[in-house]
C-alpha cells in the first residue's frame, strides 16, 4: 500500500439548532441550504466557478490516498494519520490558497526530492444535514467532532472513525450525517483512488427564539435561515451561542461547507414504549418482503396466511390486530388503514412496501400522542421512506429463490437530492410454497422533496397491484391423520378456487413551512383508491343459502369485494416558544386531520368452477367521514422534567345503504316490502394524551404516559341513530430509557390497555365480531446496541396478559358465546421475542474497489396462543439468516429463511368446519385450523448501484 499524505482543505461542518452560521467572508454569498450548496458545487464543478467545493475551508488535515492501482486494502480502522503529519499539513498549507480553489490539493514532497504525483482530493457532491442531538437541547452544549472518513473510488463513504470526540451524542450525529455524504472521488495522476479525509463538525446550540442574538456573532437572522426544520428552541447559554466561525479561527473559509443543523419536527419520546427503529436494525436481518421490516418493532409480529394479495396479520403488545384494526399505520405520512373494510376494520395492507426504501420505523405503542387517530389502539407505526447517501444512485437488483420466486427491483435515488427523494419499482412472481400459493405483484413508490428555504414540499405516490392464490386453512386433525399435507390445500374445487387480488393507489402532497425557524406548520392533502377482492373458504361445507330455497350447499367459498375511494387533509401548526419563567418554556401545537371514505362492499357465496352466486350476504355502500382535532402543550420544566399535555377529539359520521337490510330468510312472500335498510350514525370520541419525562441523569429517562383513544366501529353493524358506538381505549405506560454512550440503549416499560368493546375474528363469517370489554397488562423490554460501528444488535421481549373482562352480548345466533369473564383472549401470544443482529464491514480493496461483507440474522418467537374453546396453539420459532459480499457497486447476497425449517402455523383458529361433507355428517364442534407458515426457503440476489 502506498500512502501519500497531502494537505487538504476540508469543510467545517457546522451544526446549529436555530440558524446556520453565516460566514463573514464578503466575497461569497451565503449558502442557504444543502441543496443550494450542492447546486453551487455542481456549478463549480461545471466550470462556472474556479472555487473548489471544499477549497477555502477551515482546516488542514491529512488525506491519505490509497493507490488503487496497487489494489491495496485501506486500513479502515487505523488512525487517519500520525500527529506529525497532520500538524505539518496544518502548518504548510495556507487556507484558501489559489491552488486549492482550483480544486487541487497541494502537493507535498516530504523528502524534498522528486515531484509528487498530482492529487485531486475528493469533492463533496451530496451532503446530509446533521441533526443537533435532541437530548442535548436542554444543556445547550457546543462541541466539535472530527471524523476520519474513508471515501471509496465511487465516492461513497465506506469507513468512518472518530478522530476528535465531543461526546457520544455529537459523535453519533456527525457519523450519521457523514455516512450519507457522497463525493467525487480523489484522483491521483488521473486515476480515481480511495482516500481518507478528515471532516470536522462544529455543533453549536441554537439561539433562543425569543431572545436577541448576542452582538458580534455572525448568526444569521431567522428570516435568512435556510431549510432547518426547527420546531422549538432549547435554552442556550449566551456564551455558547457565540460559537462563530471566527471562534475556530477559520471563519473566512467556512463558507461552502456549512452543514445545517436539522431538528426533528417533534419531541421524540412521549412514552417509554416509543421506539425509533433505524435502517441499521431493519437491514440487519433478511426480510422476504418490505413489510417484514415491521418485525423489528418491539412486540410486533406479522405473518401471511392468505397469500400476497391479502394484508398481513399483525400482533402487537397483547393485541391480535388482525389485518390492522389495532394499529394505525402511516407510510410517508399517508394513512394506510381502511375504515369499515369488508375483510376487517382498519384493514391495512402493507404489501406495497419496498424494503429498500424503508428508512425508519417510528413505533408508538399505546396511546399517548394527540396525533394518533383511528385504530391507534395497540399503537401506531409511522414508516418513513428514504434512501441514505451510501445507497443513493440508481440500483438494479434481481433475485431468484426457492419456489421459483423471482424479484426485480429498480431504485432511483438521485445523489444530489434529499434522502426522501426516491423512486422504486418492484416486481415479484412466485409459485409459492406448497400448493395453491402462486402469486404476482408489482409495486411502485415515488417520493420527492422539493422547494427551498423555509418552504419545502414533499410529494409521494404509491401504486400497487397483486393477485395470488391461497390455500386457506386446514383442519389440524386432517393434517395429523394425513388426509391433507401441511403445505397443501383441500382437494375440493371450492378450496382450490381460493384467491385474492388487490390494487391501491395513494398520492399526497405535503407542505412544510418554517417561520423564522421558531414556529412551523405542515399542510397536506392525499387521495387513495383501493380495490380488494377475495375468494376464501374457511369452513368447507357448512353454509346454506339464505336467499334461495331448495339449493344444496356448494361450498362456503365466500367472495368479499371492497372498493374504497378516500381523500383527506391534514394540517398542524406549532407555535413559537413561550417562556414565562427562566426555568420553564414550551410550545403549543394544534392540528386537524380529516378524511372521507366512499366504500362499496359485497359478500357472496359462490360456487367454484361455474362461478355462480348462490347466496348474498352483504351488499352495501358506506360513506364515512372522520374529522379529528388536537392540541398539544409541550413544556420543558427545568432541565430535569418535560411534560406534555394533549387532547384529541374526533367526530365520526357514517351513512350506510344496506341493500340487503330487512332481509328475512325465506319467511315472507315477495312483495310485502322492498328490501333494503338505510341508516346513519354519528358520534364523538375524545380523550387526553399526556406524558411526563424526568431526567435524573444524562443517561436515564423516566417516563409515564396516559392516553385515551378509540377505534371506529364497523359501520355496517351500526343501528340507525346510534351514538358514539366507539371502542374506548385507555392506555397507561410507565418505564425508563437508558443510554450508555450510544453503545447500548435500553428501554423497559410496563403497560396497561383497556378496551370498552373489543372484537375477534369469526371464521364462519370471515370477519370480526364483537367480544366485549378486554384488558391487557404487560411489559416490554427493548435493547439496542452498536458495540462497533459495523455491528448492530437489537432484542425485544414483550409480555402480555390479555383477558376478557365481560363476555360478549348474547345474540340469537350465539346465545352463549364461547367466552367467559376472565379468560385469556384468543389468538394473543403472551410472549413475543424478536432478535436482530447484523454486521457489515469493508474488508479490503480489490482492483481499486472496496470489498466487504455482511451477515445478519433475525429470530422471532411467539409463545403458544390461547384459542377459543379451550385450545392453545403451538409456539412459533423462525430463524432467518443472510450473508453477502459487495465489491464496488455490486452486491451479492444469499438469504435463508426459516433456517430451522420449523413447521409452524402462520395463523391458527378454532371453529367448526366440514371438509368431508359427502362421507359423514357435519361436525359442529370447533376444531383447530391452521394456515401453514412458510418452510425453509432461500433467495439469491445480485444488485448493482451506480
Amino acid at each position, binding site marked *: 500500500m502506498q500512502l501519500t499524505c497531502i494537505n487538504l482543505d476540508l469543510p467545517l461542518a457546522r451544526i446549529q439548532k436555530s440558524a446556520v452560521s453565516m460566514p463573514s467572508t464578503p466575497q461569497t454569498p451565503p449558502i442557504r441550504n444543502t441543496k443550494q450548496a450542492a447546486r453551487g458545487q455542481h456549478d463549480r464543478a461545471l466550470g462556472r466557478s474556479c472555487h473548489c467545493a471544499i477549497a477555502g475551508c477551515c482546516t488542514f488535515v491529512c488525506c491519505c490516498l490509497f493507490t488503487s492501482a496497487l489494489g491495496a486494502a485501506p486500513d479502515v480502522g487505523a488512525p487517519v494519520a500520525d500527529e506529525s503529519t497532520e500538524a505539518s499539513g496544518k502548518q504548510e498549507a495556507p487556507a484558501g490558497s489559489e491552488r486549492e480553489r482550483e480544486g487541487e490539493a497541494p502537493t507535498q514532497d516530504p523528502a524534498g526530492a522528486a515531484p509528487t504525483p498530482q492529487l485531486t482530493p475528493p469533492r463533496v457532491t451530496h451532503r446530509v444535514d446533521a441533526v443537533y442531538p435532541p437530548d442535548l437541547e436542554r444543556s445547550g452544549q457546543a462541541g466539535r467532532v472530527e471524523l476520519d472518513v474513508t471515501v471509496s473510488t465511487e465516492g461513497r463513504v465506506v469507513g468512518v472513525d472518530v478522530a476528535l470526540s465531543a461526546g457520544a451524542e455529537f459523535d453519533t450525529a456527525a457519523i450519521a450525517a457523514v455516512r450519507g455524504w457522497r463525493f467525487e472521488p480523489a484522483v491521483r495522476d488521473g486515476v480515481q483512488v480511495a482516500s481518507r479525509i478528515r471532516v470536522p463538525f462544529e455543533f453549536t446550540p441554537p439561539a433562543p427564539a425569543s431572545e436577541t442574538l448576542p452582538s458580534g456573532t455572525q448568526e444569521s437572522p431567522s428570516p435568512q435561515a435556510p431549510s432547518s426544520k426547527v420546531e422549538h428552541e432549547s435554552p442556550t447559554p449566551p456564551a455558547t451561542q457565540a460559537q462563530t466561525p471566527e471562534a475556530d479561527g477559520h471563519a473566512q473559509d467556512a463558507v461552502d461547507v456549512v452543514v445545517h443543523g436539522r431538528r426533528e419536527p417533534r419531541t421524540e419520546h412521549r412514552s417509554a414504549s416509543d421506539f425509533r427503529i433505524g435502517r441499521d436494525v431493519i437491514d440487519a436481518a433478511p426480510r422476504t418482503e418490505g413489510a417484514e421490516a415491521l418485525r423489528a418493532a418491539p412486540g410486533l409480529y406479522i405473518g401471511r396466511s392468505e397469500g400476497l394479495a391479502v394484508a398481513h396479520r399483525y400482533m402487537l403488545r397483547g393485541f391480535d390486530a388482525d389485518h390492522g384494526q389495532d394499529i394505525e399505520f402511516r407510510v410517508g405520512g399517508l394513512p394506510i388503514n381502511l375504515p369499515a373494510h369488508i375483510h376487517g376494520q382498519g384493514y391495512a395492507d402493507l404489501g406495497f412496501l419496498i424494503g429498500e426504501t424503508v428508512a425508519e420505523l417510528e413505533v408508538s405503542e399505546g396511546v399517548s400522542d394527540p396525533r394518533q387517530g383511528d385504530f391507534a389502539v395497540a399503537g401506531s407505526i409511522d414508516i418513513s421512506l428514504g434512501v441514505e447517501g451510501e445507497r443513493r444512485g440508481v440500483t438494479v437488483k434481481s433475485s431468484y429463490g426457492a419456489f421459483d420466486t423471482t424479484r426485480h427491483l429498480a431504485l432511483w435515488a438521485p445523489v444530489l437530492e434529499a434522502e426522501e427523494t426516491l423512486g422504486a419499482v418492484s416486481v415479484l412472481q412466485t409459485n409459492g410454497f406448497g400448493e395453491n400459493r402462486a402469486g404476482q405483484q408489482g409495486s411502485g413508490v415515488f417520493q420527492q422533496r422539493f422547494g427551498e428555504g423555509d418552504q419545502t414540499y414533499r410529494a409521494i405516490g404509491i401504486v400497487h397491484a397483486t393477485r395470488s392464490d391461497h390455500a386457506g386453512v386446514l383442519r389440524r386433525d386432517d393434517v395429523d391423520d394425513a388426509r391433507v399435507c401441511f403445505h397443501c390445500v383441500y382437494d375440493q374445487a371450492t378450496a382450490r378456487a381460493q384467491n385474492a387480488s388487490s390494487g391501491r393507489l395513494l398520492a399526497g402532497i405535503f407542505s412544510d413551512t418554517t417561520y423564522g425557524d421558531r414556529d412551523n406548520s405542515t399542510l397536506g392533502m392525499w387521495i387513495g383508491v383501493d380495490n380488494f377482492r377475495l375468494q376464501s373458504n374457511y369452513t368447507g361445507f357448512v353454509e*346454506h343459502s339464505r336467499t334461495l330455497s331448495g339449493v344444496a350447499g356448494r361450498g362456503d367459498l365466500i367472495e368479499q369485494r371492497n372498493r374504497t375511494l378516500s381523500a383527506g387533509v391534514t394540517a398542524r401548526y406549532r407555535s413559537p416558544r413561550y417562556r414565562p419563567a427562566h426555568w420553564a418554556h414550551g410550545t403549543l401545537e394544534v392540528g386537524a386531520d380529516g378524511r372521507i371514505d366512499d366504500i362499496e362492499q359485497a359478500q357472496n357465496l359462490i360456487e367454484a368452477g361455474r362461478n355462480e352466486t348462490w347466496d348474498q350476504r352483504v351488499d352495501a355502500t358506506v360513506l364515512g367521514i372522520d374529522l379529528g382535532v388536537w392540541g398539544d402543550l409541550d413544556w420543558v420544566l427545568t432541565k430535569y422534567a418535560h411534560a406534555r399535555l394533549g387532547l384529541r377529539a374526533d367526530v365520526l359520521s357514517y351513512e350506510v345503504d344496506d341493500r340487503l337490510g330487512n332481509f328475512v330468510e325465506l319467511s315472507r312472500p315477495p312483495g310485502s316490502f322492498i328490501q333494503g335498510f338505510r341508516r346513519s350514525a354519528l358520534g364523538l370520541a375524545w380523550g387526553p394524551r399526556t406524558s411526563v419525562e424526568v431526567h435524573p441523569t444524562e443517561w436515564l429517562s423516566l417516563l409515564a404516559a396516559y392516553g385515551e383513544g378509540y377505534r371506529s366501529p364497523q359501520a355496517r353493524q351500526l343501528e340507525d341513530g346510534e351514538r358514539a358506538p366507539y371502542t374506548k381505549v385507555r392506555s397507561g405506560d410507565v418505564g425508563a430509557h437508558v443510554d450508555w454512550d450510544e453503545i447500548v440503549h435500553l428501554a423497559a416499560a410496563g403497560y396497561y390497555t383497556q378496551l370498552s368493546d373489543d372484537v375477534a375474528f369469526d371464521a364462519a363469517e370471515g370477519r370480526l365480531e364483537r367480544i366485549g370489554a378486554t384488558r391487557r397488562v404487560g*411489559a416490554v423490554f427493548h435493547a439496542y446496541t452498536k458495540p462497533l460501528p459495523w455491528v448492530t444488535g437489537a432484542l425485544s421481549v414483550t409480555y402480555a396478559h390479555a383477558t376478557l373482562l365481560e363476555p360478549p352480548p348474547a345474540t340469537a345466533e*350465539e346465545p352463549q358465546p364461547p367466552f367467559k369473564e376472565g379468560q*385469556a383472549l384468543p389468538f394473543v401470544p403472551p410472549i413475543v421475542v424478536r432478535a436482530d443482529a447484523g454486521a457489515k464491514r469493508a474488508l479490503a480493496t480489490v482492483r481499486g474497489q472496496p470489498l466487504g461483507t455482511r451477515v445478519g440474522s433475525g429470530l422471532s418467537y411467539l409463545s403458544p396462543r390461547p384459542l377459543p374453546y379451550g385450545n392453545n396453539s403451538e409456539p412459533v420459532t423462525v430463524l432467518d439468516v443472510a450473508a453477502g459480499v459487495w465489491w464496488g457497486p455490486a452486491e451479492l447476497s444469499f438469504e435463508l429463511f426459516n433456517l430451522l425449517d420449523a413447521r409452524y402455523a402462520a395463523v391458527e383458529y378454532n371453529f367448526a368446519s366440514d371438509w368431508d361433507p359427502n362421507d359423514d355428517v357435519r361436525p359442529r364442534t370447533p376444531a383447530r385450523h391452521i394456515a401453514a407458515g412458510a418452510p425453509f426457503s432461500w433467495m439469491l440476489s445480485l444488485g448493482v448501484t451506480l
Partner: protein
Amino acid sequence: MRPWLPCILVLCCSGCGAETGQEPVSIPLHVAGSGGTSIVLDNDVELQVLRADLAFGPLYLCSGPEAGDFCETARAEWLDSVVIDLLDSSPARVGRIRGSTGTVRSWMYDLGISSLLTETSPTALDAAQALGNASLLVEALAERDGAELSLTLRVVVDQAPEGEWGVPVVRRSRSDEFDHEIRADEQGLLVRFDAAPWFRGLDLAPYFEELDCGDDAPCRGELVIDAPGPLYNHLRLALEAGARPVFDWGFSP
C-alpha cells in the same frame, strides 16, 4: 445476555398457561332402550312388541336454549349412528362425545337419516341402512278379542325439503328440561329411550275391524306400514316431538 433477562423470561412464561375458557372433553356415550315388550293400547288392544330397533345419531349438545339453526357451533357432539334395541334396557357403549367444558342447554339429533348441506335429498347413515333406510323398525303382534294382527312398522324421520336443511330433525323443545354443566371429569352420558309412549297412541281398531274373521278360521291379519298414513304419521310425529329420551349425566357402567 444480561443475568436478569432470564428472570424476566421466566416470569413471562408464567403467563403462558392462561385460562382459555373451556377445556376439551371426551365423554363415553351409552344408549339403552326401556326394556318393556307389552303395551296396552286404546280400544283394548294389547301390543306385544317383538322387535323395536331405532336408528340414532348423530347427536349434538348445544350451549344455547334452542338448538337447530341456533346451534351452528355445538358444545359437544357424537357424529356416529347406531341401532338401539329399544327392548333392551341394558346400556350399550357406542362411542364418545367430544367437545369442550361448559354449559349445555339444548340438544338435537337425527334418527339415522341426515340432511347433508351438499345433498338435495336426505342421506341414510349406517344405522338407518341396517334398518332398510328407516329410522324405526318395529315388529309386533297386536291382539284384541282373540284377533291377532301382525304388525311391521318402518318409519323414516328425515328433514323435509322446506325445513331447515342441514339441521337435525329432533330437537329439544322449550318444555324439555335440559341444563347441564359439562366438566372436564365427566364420567359418561346415558341416553335412554322409552318407546312405549310412542306406541300408546296407535289406533289399531280400524285395522282389526277390517279383518275378515270367519267363525271357524282364526282371526289373523298382517299389516305393513311403511308409507305416510295414520299409523305412520303418528309414529313419525311421536319420534320427532313425542316422548323424549332421558339424558343421564354421570352414568358409569
